[in-house]
C-alpha cells in the first residue's frame, strides 16, 4: 500500500492539481528550481539538472548501490526478523502448552511439526502438482482479468457513456465475495476447471478495472491537448499518453488484483476440484493432518507474495521515468 501511495504521488507530480490530500505527506516530484543567470548561461546549463546529468546514475551502480540497498533495507530486515522470531516463539509457547483460553490452541501443531511436514511435502511430487494446478488457474484467471479489466477501465475512464453503462455492474458486483459466486459458477460453466478460473478472474477483475479507470481519469488534460496539437491520432494518444499516464495506477490495480485472485482461487478450490493448493489445505483438514493445513496456508501466502512481486517486476522497466524523477 505504501508502494501504491508512492506511485500515485510521483505520478501526480507534473499535475500537482490532482494530488490527493492523503498523499501530501510525500512531496510530489517537482522539477528542480531553475538556477540560471542570464550572464552565466553556459556554465549553469551543466549544473542545472539537479546535479544528475545522464551517465552519473549508471556510474553509481555497483558496490555503492549494493551498500546503499543494504543500508536502506537493513532496518526493515532487522526489525522484521525480530518480529517474526517473536511470533514464532509465541506460537511455540501457546501450542506446546495447549493453551485453551477462548481461542483453543490444543489442536494447533507447533512450528517444528509444521516445518517437518513442509520438508516432507517438499519431497512429494504430488505437492508440486497441487502448486502447478493452482498457478495455472491463477495465470488463466488473472491474465484474462488483466486484459478485460484494463480495456474496461480505460473505456470507463475515457467515455462518459462507458462509465454510465458499466458503473452499476461494477458497483453491485464488486462487494460480492468470491465464495458467493461458487454455486452459480458451478451451474454456469461446463467444467469445474472453468468455474474455478472464472472465480479467480472475478477476484482480480474489480481492482484492475477501478484502478485503471482512476489512472485514466487522472491523465493531465494538458498532455492530451499537447499530443493533439502535435498531430497524434486518438489511438496514438492512447498508447503514448493515456496508457503511460495511467500505468502506475494500473500496476497498483494489477498487484492488488493478483492478491485477490489468490484468495478467490482458494475459495474455489476448497469447494470443488481434486488438485490445487486450496484443495490440499482443505483435504489436510478432512484427513486430520493439521500440520499440512498450515503448510498449505504458508505456501499460498508465499505464492501470492511472489506473484505480486512478479507483477511489479514486469512493470518496472516501464516506470523508469518515475524513479528518475526523484
Amino acid at each position: 500500500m505504501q508502494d501504491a501511495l508512492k506511485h500515485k504521488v510521483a505520478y501526480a507530480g507534473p499535475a500537482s492539481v490532482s494530488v490527493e490530500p492523503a498523499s501530501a505527506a510525500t512531496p510530489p516530484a517537482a522539477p528542480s528550481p531553475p538556477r540560471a543567470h542570464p550572464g552565466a548561461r553556459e556554465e549553469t546549463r551543466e549544473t542545472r539538472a539537479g546535479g544528475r546529468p545522464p551517465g552519473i546514475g549508471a556510474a553509481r551502480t555497483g558496490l555503492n548501490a549494493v551498500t546503499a540497498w543494504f543500508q536502506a533495507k537493513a532496518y526493515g530486515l532487522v526489525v522484521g526478523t525480530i518480529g517474526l522470531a517473536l511470533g514464532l516463539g509465541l506460537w511455540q509457547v501457546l501450542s506446546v502448552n495447549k493453551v485453551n483460553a477462548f481461542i483453543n490452541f490444543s489442536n494447533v501443531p507447533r512450528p517444528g511439526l509444521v516445518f517437518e511436514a513442509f520438508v516432507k511435502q517438499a519431497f512429494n511430487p504430488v505437492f508440486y502438482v497441487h502448486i502447478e494446478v493452482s498457478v495455472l488457474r491463477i495465470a488463466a484467471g488473472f491474465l484474462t482479468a488483466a486484459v478485460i479489466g484494463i480495456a474496461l477501465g480505460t473505456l470507463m475512464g475515457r467515455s462518459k457513456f462507458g462509465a454510465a453503462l458499466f458503473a452499476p455492474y461494477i458497483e453491485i458486483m464488486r462487494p460480492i465475495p468470491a465464495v458467493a459466486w461458487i454455486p452459480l459458477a458451478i451451474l454456469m460453466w461446463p467444467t469445474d476447471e472453468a468455474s474455478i478460473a472464472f472465480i479467480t478472474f472475478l477476484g482480480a477483475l474489480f481492482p484492475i478495472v477501478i484502478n485503471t479507470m482512476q489512472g485514466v481519469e487522472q491523465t493531465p488534460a494538458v498532455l492530451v491537448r499537447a499530443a493533439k496539437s502535435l498531430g497524434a491520432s486518438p489511438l496514438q494518444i492512447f498508447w503514448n499518453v493515456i496508457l503511460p499516464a495511467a500505468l502506475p495506477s494500473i500496476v497498483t490495480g494489477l498487484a492488488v488484483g493478483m492478491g485477490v485472485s489468490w484468495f478467490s482461487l482458494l475459495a474455489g478450490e476448497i469447494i470443488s476440484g481434486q488438485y490445487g493448493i486450496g484443495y490440499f489445505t482443505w483435504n489436510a483438514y478432512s484427513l486430520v493432518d493439521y500440520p499440512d493445513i498450515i503448510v498449505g496456508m504458508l505456501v499460498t501466502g508465499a505464492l501470492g507474495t511472489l506473484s505480486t512481486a512478479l507483477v511489479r517486476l514486469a512493470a518496472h522497466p516501464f516506470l523508469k521515468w518515475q524513479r528518475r524523477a526523484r
Partner: protein
Amino acid sequence: MEHVVSLTDRLASIGGRRSSAGRGHIRVDGVAITFGSGRKAHHAVMETSLDIKPGEFVCILGPSGCGKSTLLSSIAGYVRPSSGEVIVDNVPVRGPGPERGMVFQQYSLFPWKTIRENIVFGPKVAGRPKAELEAIGATFLEMVGLAKFAQSYPAELSGGMQQRVGIARALANSPSVLLMDEPFGALDAQTRLMMQESLLEIWSAFGITVVFVTHDVDEAIFLADRIVIMSASPGSVIADLKVTLPRPRSQDMATTDAFMELKRACHERIRAESLKAFAQQSQ
C-alpha cells in the same frame, strides 16, 4: 545567435519542409466564445476580429480572466467559437492540428518520454522515417542547448529547460504558427528574461508567426511586433498597438524612452479598463 541561423540551414535540408515563409496567416473573423447558455451563459470572448500577418509576432496582453487564453485556444482549435471562425492559411480551424504548434504554461512535456522522444513526438506520429527523426532530434536538441539531456526525463530538468524543450517540441513539427499560452509565467524573473531572448532568436531564425499570450507588459513590449490588449469580462480587444522598437532587441532597451512610452500607453489602457471592471464588481 549565429549558431541558430546556421541551424536553420540544416533544418532546411531536413526534407526541405521548413519554408515557413508566406505561411502562418491567421484571420480571427468575428469570433465570440460563450460558455454555457441561457442565464448562466458566460461570455468569455466578445466578438473579436484580428488579422495576423505571416511571420508576425503578436502578443495578446491582458489581466487574468480576460479571455486571452480562450481566444488562443480557439486559434489552437481546442475551443469552438460560438460564432465567427478562425482561418489559418485559408483553412478554417476545426480542431487542433500539427500546423499550429502549441506551447503551454508548464508541465506539458510527456513525463514518461525522454527529452529526445518528446522533441520528435510530432514527426514520429506523422510517420517520418527513423533517420529523419534522428536528424530532427539532434538538431532541435542543439538548438535549445540541451543535447546533453537527450536521454533525461522532463522531471530531471529545471522549469526553464523544460519550457525550451516545449518550444523545441512544437517547432520540430514544422508548424506555420506557434501559439504560446503564458509559456514563461511559471519561471523566475531571470530565467524568464533569458527565455525571452532565446525565443526571439529562434523566432527570427524560423520566420514563423507567433501568438503569445501574457499578462506581463514588459514581456509583451520586449517580444512583440504588435500588442493586442484585452479587457476582462466580457473579454474584448481594447487596443491594438504597434511596437516599433528595432530588432534585434536586447533587455537594456527596457530603459529607452520609446519603451517607456509604450509601457505607459499599455498601462493607461489597462488601468482604465481595470477601474471600469472594478467599479462594475463593487456595484
